[in-house]
């Protein structure tokens, strides 16, 4: 059990949740979060939005019953958290990198940009975000980006100069990641995607989050959530 430091509502039903404590995570990994309630029986997998010395921050969207229960949580409430789980985006990337996020898929990319800035000093990092409407958090992506482009209400994939990049990390709607993969294949770009699936155990045992890849069934929670784009699409 841990305590909630804050749970701030933003526009479009987004929330920023900070849970107090000392945590470690690699970029792209997730934690399992649960507020004890008979109506929120399973943990929710949430990728790390940011890590601070005294807590971990998640960006989530209120959609169903579970996230509605989470959204009602206040500072000081107890919450259960375990992890981190899953693999991570590669740390040894070379050349120029684009991070592309759509909707809640932007959640892991802030921590990714922070880590890349630290570990890939010679790379430039360009961030492309697609959102429904203007919000409060996207400006903070400027902290670690050499360029930030946000599109509201359209298709962010229309604004990416693909030929500039050696590597692309993407997370968002399937259609978005699929479009990027098409370009990546044409231009020989290393493309990594982070997938989202409903989960139960989160550790690789129950097989409810299986996805189909070119190399057979894989567990999003354990073999992923990060996969090579070419193995998925």
């Amino acid at each position: 059990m841990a305590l909630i430091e804050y749970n701030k509502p933003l526009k479009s039903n987004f929330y920023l949740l900070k849970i107090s404590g000392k945590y470690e995570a690699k970029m792209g990994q997730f934690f399992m979060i649960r507020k004890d309630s008979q109506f929120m029986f399973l943990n929710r997998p949430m990728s790390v939005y940011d890590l601070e010395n005294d807590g971990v921050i998640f960006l989530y969207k209120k959609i169903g019953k579970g996230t509605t229960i989470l959204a009602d949580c206040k500072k000081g409430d107890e919450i259960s958290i375990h992890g981190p789980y899953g693999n991570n985006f590669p740390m040894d990337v070379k050349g120029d990198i684009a991070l592309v996020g759509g909707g809640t898929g932007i959640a892991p990319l802030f921590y990714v940009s922070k880590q890349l800035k630290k570990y890939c000093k010679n790379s430039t990092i360009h961030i492309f975000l697609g959102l429904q409407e203007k919000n409060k958090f996207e400006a903070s992506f400027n902290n670690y980006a050499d360029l930030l482009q946000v599109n509201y209400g359209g298709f962010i994939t229309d604004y990416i100069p693909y030929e500039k990049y050696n590597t692309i990390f993407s997370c968002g709607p399937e259609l978005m990641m699929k479009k990027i993969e098409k370009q990546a294949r044409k231009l020989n770009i290393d493309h990594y995607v982070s997938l989202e699936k409903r989960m139960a155990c989160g550790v690789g045992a129950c097989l409810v989050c299986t996805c189909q890849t070119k190399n057979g069934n894989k567990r999003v929670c354990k073999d992923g959530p990060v996969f090579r784009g070419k193995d998925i699409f």
Partner: protein
Amino acid sequence: MSGLLDINFLEINLKNPIIMASGTFGFGREYAEIYDIQKLGGIVSKGLTLNPRSGNQGIRVWETSSGMMNSVGLENPGIQTFIKNELPFMQSLDLAHIINISGTNLEDYVKACYKISREKVDMIELNISCPNVQENSVPFGVKETTTREVVKEVKKVVKVPLMVKLSPDADDIIRIARICEEEGADAISLINTFKAFAININEKKKIFENTYAGLSGPCIKPIALRMVHEVAKQVKIPVMGIGGIVDYQDVLEFLMAGARAVQIGTANFINPKVGEIIIKDLENYLISNDISNISEIIGIVN
């Protein structure tokens, strides 16, 4: 080992009556990264079939109040690959390892059980109760005739203890349990998940491609407990209780109702270390209630 929780199940000495249920614990590897699973009494493998299965399409999990539904559809590597890649790990653990075997027809059940019983395994759990195998198909364990047939034929070919896992959807679960005993089953485990249904009201469509899915978790516990109580009184072979157990109090209820051991399933998803916690809490319970061994409470509530 304190001795408080030791218990024999058939000829197997268990450190404690806590066993991890099929399909919720893989083959043990993932949870072994999280805690020392050798504290457990045992683990049951993910359900295996003669040939590999890639499992069901579409959504595989759906949350309910105090429970969940799953439609994994027995995704597994098949018995041969399991024996080669996973069984050595299970055998290396200092705990009871039980191999769960499933099938869609009699021949596959018999072949898979024959193969696994030639290996060094502690027990086979014959799964005649998975609701997720084929759309509109009835599990073997629902009808008396198919139950009798599969237990009889499997019993002929296996050399290791055979435990049969019953379905709560059985026409008459007491009758089914008796048939298993008559046909030579060495033990009974119950219950598997309930066949259940969920609808997406916005799209006016069913949630699961396979239509129905298996319901588990605390929401089924009182029914599971009633079934264990009924069955344990009616058969002489030992019973393993399963169904919505999340803490040591639940374990005690199942034991008092007549189960000689229990399986923990869905609770692993809520807290991956639940097994370790339950074992510690059980020990404390026995100490504070001055009970020298857990077997003293088995079946004490008539």
